[in-house]
């Protein structure tokens, strides 16, 4: 007997008042919104920090308070917040929470209380992180990779308390992600409704599912490295600390290995790239299919590609360490595995493009963002082939080429999907459409602006311009034109940053004034659009769980009047629809 049947008779934890409904809520939809809003607030802080950094790079000395210390703190916090506290939290805690039960036909996550705890631990981790702005010495400026020994020795900003709060915050975040992750995996495996086989799940669910598994396996590596570094910092152990001097003084540490930290960090860090990318892959597949009114091309291949990428992502980590001083012979192995992972990734790109091919493409705002994602991801993915191929990486690593590459591939590309997905699912979440005109304006500025920022930036890296430089004006091999280009990039970045106000305004304004959407404004076939109420009520479905008869991509089925057949239509009903259509014509 499936879990779906078992739970039919169990009463859900009904919310009793305002607090249990909106604050201490156990409803996955409310938790998803709590997660998303917290992540967006954290992301806005990180966005402002990047603007401050860019001012220093483009116009050195223009900000009075921007000394080297502050610059490195802004840089570190920007990176960490964007990767962990925005993207990971938003894709898994936000989209995962909202969409999984609705897409697989569950009434809620299987452990609603744990799900609630997951959010509160996440919020706690954000509070701890932001508290580091107010401790003596300020937040850590160790770079988001937090490499020891430098992260905990004098000469790095925040080496006293900032780094401690950062590590504690990460540990708390991982507790939150684990509680959420166990929930998502169990819900997908156990709580699917009648007829919802694994291969009838939308690719969104597949992407989030695989990303969650990666998170559950990869985050422990970060957790232990955070704990070990805390011990080195607070208890004087030497996990990562060799015999060394610091500021002319010999330290008491002895025998530790800084490279060990890098292995642990990237054993987490590379799967982390896919923890962000796989949900984006899934969501964008669904957006493309719905708005081009065509079944996703090569669904099975897409699922296997997601699984293959997930598995391979655990054996490529040391491509972040080609020039780290590890045994150079590792380079042969990791270059080969890294380039192999390009094959399933390329298959995904082809299948997105072939989904559009022969479609009936509606150029809605979600589709615009989805196509912009394909373009940006393509650019960022191809530059990854430079950096993954060990010897090509040697001159380029630690330059602006790397900065441009990872911002394209795991910054801008997933964020474009976030925007597309919010435009796509906002009507389900709020019952109202987002404003189309503002949406298009927001799209064009964001898409073209980010390309203007990051495409030319690759050439600064080819030139040899190093990253993480507070000021590079003293170096003679960098021509004035490169500094001018940096000024241009800064202007583009400020414009893109400010343009996000359009998006926030749209979110806020449309919540009250947006056009009413109805249950299924995009005429989508997947289950989340089949709720009887929009936004869905507590428990998602009415009296009975929905029964699923087909996969979520039946668009433009020949002989049927509408251009989609939703997942709850049975084979008999479909035949009847086709018959009645024949009779009419």
């Amino acid at each position, binding site marked *: 007997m499936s879990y779906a049947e078992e739970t039919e008779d169990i009463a859900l934890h009904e919310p009793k008042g305002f607090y249990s409904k909106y604050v201490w809520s156990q409803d996955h939809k409310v938790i998803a919104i709590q997660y998303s809003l917290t992540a967006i607030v954290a992301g806005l802080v990180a966005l402002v920090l990047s603007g401050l950094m860019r001012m220093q790079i483009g116009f050195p000395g223009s900000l009075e308070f921007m000394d080297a210390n502050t610059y490195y703190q802004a840089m570190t916090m920007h990176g960490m917040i964007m990767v962990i506290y925005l993207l990971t939290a938003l894709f898994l805690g936000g989209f995962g929470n909202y969409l999984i039960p609705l897409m697989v036909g569950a009434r809620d996550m299987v452990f609603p209380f744990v799900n609630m705890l997951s959010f509160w631990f996440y919020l706690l981790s954000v509070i701890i992180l932001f508290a580091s702005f107010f401790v003596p010495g300020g937040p850590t400026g160790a770079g988001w990779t937090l490499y020891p020994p430098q992260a905990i020795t004098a000469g790095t900003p925040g080496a006293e308390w900032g780094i401690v709060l950062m590590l504690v915050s990460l540990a708390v975040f991982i507790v939150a992600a684990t509680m959420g992750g166990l929930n998502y995996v169990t819900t997908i495996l156990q709580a699917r409704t009648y007829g919802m086989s694994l291969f009838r799940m939308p690719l969104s669910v597949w992407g989030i599912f695989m990303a969650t598994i990666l998170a559950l396996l990869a985050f422990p590596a970060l957790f232990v490295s955070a704990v070990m570094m805390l011990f080195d910092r607070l208890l004087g152990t030497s996990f990562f600390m060799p015999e060394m001097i610091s500021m002319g003084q010999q330290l008491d540490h002895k025998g530790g290995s800084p490279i060990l930290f890098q292995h642990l960090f990237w054993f987490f860090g590379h799967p982390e790239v896919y923890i962000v990318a796989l949900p984006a892959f899934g969501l964008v597949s669904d957006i493309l299919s719905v708005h*081009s009114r065509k079944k996703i091309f090569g669904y099975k291949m897409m699922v296997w590609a997601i699984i293959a990428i997930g598995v391979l992502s655990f054996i490529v980590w040391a491509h972040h360490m080609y020039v780290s001083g590890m045994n150079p012979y590792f380079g042969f192995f990791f270059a080969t595995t890294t380039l192999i992972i390009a094959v399933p990734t390329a298959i995904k790109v082809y299948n997105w493009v072939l989904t559009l091919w022969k479609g009936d493409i509606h150029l809605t705002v979600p589709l615009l963002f989805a196509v912009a994602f394909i373009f940006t991801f393509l650019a960022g993915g191809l530059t990854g082939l430079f950096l993954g191929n060990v010897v090509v990486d040697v001159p380029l690593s630690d330059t602006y080429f790397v900065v441009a590459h990872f911002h394209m591939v795991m910054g801008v590309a997933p964020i474009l999907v976030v925007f597309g997905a919010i435009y796509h699912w906002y009507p389900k979440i709020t019952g109202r459409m987002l404003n189309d005109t503002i949406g298009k304006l927001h799209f064009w500025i964001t898409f073209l602006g980010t390309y203007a920022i990051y495409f030319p930036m690759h050439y600064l890296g080819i030139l040899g311009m190093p990253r993480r430089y507070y000021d590079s004006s003293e170096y003679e091999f960098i021509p004035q034109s490169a500094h001018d280009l940096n000024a241009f990039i800064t202007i583009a970045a400020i414009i893109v940053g400010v343009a996000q106000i359009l998006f926030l305004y749209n979110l806020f304004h449309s919540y009250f004034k947006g056009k009413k959407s109805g249950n299924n404004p995009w005429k989508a076939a997947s289950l989340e659009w089949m709720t009887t109420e929009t936004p869905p009520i507590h428990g998602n479905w009415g009296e009975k769980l929905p029964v699923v008869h087909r996969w979520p991509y039946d668009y433009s089925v020949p002989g049927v009047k509408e251009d989609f057949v939703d997942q709850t239509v049975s084979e008999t009903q479909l035949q009847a629809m086709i018959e009645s259509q024949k009779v009419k014509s």
Partner: protein
Amino acid sequence: MALAIILILLIIGSLIFNFVNPWQATPIASNWGSIDDTIFITAIITGIFFVGITLFVAYTLIKYRHKEDKPEEENEAGVHQAAYEPDNKKLEWWLTGITTVGICALLAPGLIVYNDFVHVPKQAGLIEVVAKQWMWSFRLPGEDNILGKTSVKHINSDNSFGIDPDDPNGQDDILIMSNEIHIQLDQPLKFLLRSLDVLHNFYVPHFRAKMDMVPGQLSYFWLTPIETGEYEILCAEYCGVAHYNMGGRVFVDNSQDYQQWLSNQPTFSQQYQKSLATDLADGIEEQGRQLAENSGCIACHSIDGSKSLGPGWKNMFGKTEKLTDGSTITVDNAYFDESVLNPSAKIVEGYPPVMAPYQFSGEQLEALKAYIKSIGQ
């Protein structure tokens, strides 16, 4: 439609930008032109995929966009429909195959060149690069061609490299206590990389090669300089707040110039004996100067009065400075001592509070002050 046109324009613009922009790699000065070739191959192959796929997307958007007035795309009920296209296994396998071929075309030359990169030729000379926050120094093996053993334990103001004073191999090692190094044209050279404190990375853009320097272990790379000239050294692994300020210079000399330069460099035993002797004989200013160099002070405090991470030392004593809390202070002996022993107590406005406390003895402080006062004159 607009999106398709913009995509085409982005491709055209990117291609034009690629060929006419002024930001190309620095002129190469080492044997690693083969690395540049692998970059070129990668750019060609990825460029073909980038242009091809994007143009195909643009074409698709134009051809298959939703058109209200196209009755031929409507079904019997007057509803627009897309093609109901089943999987195309054959096409998928073709695309997978082409991609795999492309990947192999990237990987094979890459690994061949990398094989050269990790195999140091037998005739290569040896040079050790030593990094610490935030300065470079260098060591050559001397006549015996063997570098003496080192340990952090041996590091002190007389022995900043930490060379074992009892190791006979170390006695003739040649020490270059400066950010500037000379190397010989056309002579293959293995760079042994060592860090005394945190991670660093020895990077000369004109040489292409780079490698992290990790405390507690050695790393290496090799190259043959092929152009005489003067090239900048950078640190390419974030190493704390003055990371960006850790520059140096490498001079590629012809054999004659190199030998002349080399003959003027002291060996470890000469330097060590001299250093021990000067502690007693040399003036107190000289002791202060050595202390300042060996303790890393001059990475952040200029001796020409210019502003750096910390206040410059020239004519510092007697100045009236404004502090971050708004009060003012005259720089005297007491304030100086406090600023070394407890730097964060009173920070001069405009400087970040990054300096670590130094546990100098009273004599060391006197020497340092004497040296700083001597700069001002």
